[in-house]
């Protein structure tokens, strides 16, 4: 499989002392859902923001679609998208205004048709005339996802997309993601603290702690490697144990 994203010795130091990310090297292959896991403050958000060109790395390189992110930012971001439970769309705009704006920001051709397809598929068409601020968490998450799929991204960054959802909606969301990932051979970098979600969705997972990659492998392999019952136990062990 093609390698879509590759980081080499990626590091970020804030100020003189705070080493947020240290020599992180990994790859994501086309069509893969990679779980990017770790406790709070492990360096996940910093790494994702570096991958999206929002933070300049102190050292190391990022290559996406075979292009260097520093020099080909616009071309790369045209083919990438992002959604997070912690980043909202403008609440004072209506849902259709938000989607139209972002469709144009991504230069989506036939954007009206694209928005219709996505909103029908995500069952959010009745929400189009409502303001984003008036939506429930579940509705907002689906609108965020519609925004993230507007440009038919080849690589999607999802930062805890189900964090604020009830189990029913979260389950529907995971099924939807699985479906769209299969249909479009979408590649996803997925962060979550819900390990059963990782077991259900991800082909592979990387654990990061204190800015360093601790271990990686398929969910089943990781459980076997540490001789534990499930990925949740693996997470707790890795988060608490500083000796890797």
């Amino acid at each position, binding site marked *: 499989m093609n390698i879509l994203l590759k980081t080499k010795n990626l590091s970020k130091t804030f100020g003189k002392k705070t080493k947020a990310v240290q020599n992180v090297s990994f790859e994501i292959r086309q069509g893969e859902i990679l779980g990017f896991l770790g406790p709070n403050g492990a360096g996940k958000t910093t790494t994702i923001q570096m991958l999206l060109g*929002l933070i300049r790395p102190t050292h190391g390189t990022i290559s996406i679609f075979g292009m260097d992110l520093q020099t080909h930012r616009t071309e790369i971001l045209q083919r990438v998208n992002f959604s997070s439970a912690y980043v*909202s*769309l403008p609440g004072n705009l209506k849902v259709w205004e938000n989607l139209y704006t972002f469709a144009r920001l991504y230069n989506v051709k036939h954007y009206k048709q694209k928005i219709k397809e996505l909103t029908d598929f995500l069952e959010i068409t009745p929400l189009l005339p409502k303001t984003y601020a008036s939506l429930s968490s579940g509705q907002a998450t689906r609108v965020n996802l519609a925004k993230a799929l507007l440009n038919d991204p080849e690589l999607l960054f999802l930062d805890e997309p189900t964090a604020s959802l009830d189990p029913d909606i979260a389950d529907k969301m995971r099924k939807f993601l699985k479906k769209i990932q299969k249909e479009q051979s979408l590649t996803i970098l997925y962060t979550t603290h819900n390990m059963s979600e990782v077991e259900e969705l991800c082909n592979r997972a990387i654990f990061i702690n204190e800015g360093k990659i601790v271990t990686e492998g398929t969910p089943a392999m990781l459980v076997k490697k540490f001789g534990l019952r499930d990925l949740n136990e693996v997470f707790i062990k890795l988060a608490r144990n500083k000796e890797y």
Partner: protein
Amino acid sequence: MLLTLRMNITRIYALVLRYLYLYPRSIPRILDVIFWPIVDILIWGFLTAYLAQFKTNNVSFAHILLGAIIFWDFVLRAQQSVSISFLEEVWERNLLNLFVTPITLADFILATVFVGLARIFLIGATLYIASLVFFQFNLFSFGILLIPLVVNLFFFGWILGLIATSILLRFGQSAQVLAFALTTLIQPFMAVFYPVSVLPKFLQYIALSIPATHVFEGMRTVVIKGIVPLDHLVIATLLNFIWLTISLLIFVKMFEYVRNEGKLLKLTD
């Protein structure tokens, strides 16, 4: 590269739309474009009408003050349109969504120019009509040559908006008062309602380094003498280019700072 100067008309249009969508249904924004400028013109207009009773030998006095308040509103609202647009993204926690799209800084900056122009057009029309209806004062009766002065004023307001945005980038929401008041902060040096000559000598040097000062001086010359002072116009334009270069450098530098320190997301906290 994020700082590339390449721009894209569709993306700029999208950003402009994003801000303009809000106007038709937002009462505070409608007030900002129509109500507050009218309040300004009424207060100052009635005051100058009253004062004019004591200055029978100087019929231009009321016109000078009215012209000044109209021009002052232009520069103030132009600054606010840039910095408040940015602040809006901070309040709405939308900065990250915006900067993970392929937009460049040039797209973002140009969009603020167009939003500012749209606002200034609406505010200008409001002020023009209000001063005509209430005080029979037609600013453009002094000729269309006032337009280059207005253009200079708009660009200086926009430059101040960019500087205010740079300060917001560096210091976050704790500096948001500047998004509203940066222009007011330097108002005493801009010689809005009085000539530069009344300032102490050392303040005159500061005043003359500000493009808007030359616009206000030029406006007074037009109203009193009926001629367009080309020297003020040329100096205002040249100073605007210098200020534009400085403000762009500051903005780019502050954006780089935010990128290096990872503060884009934290701006919303």
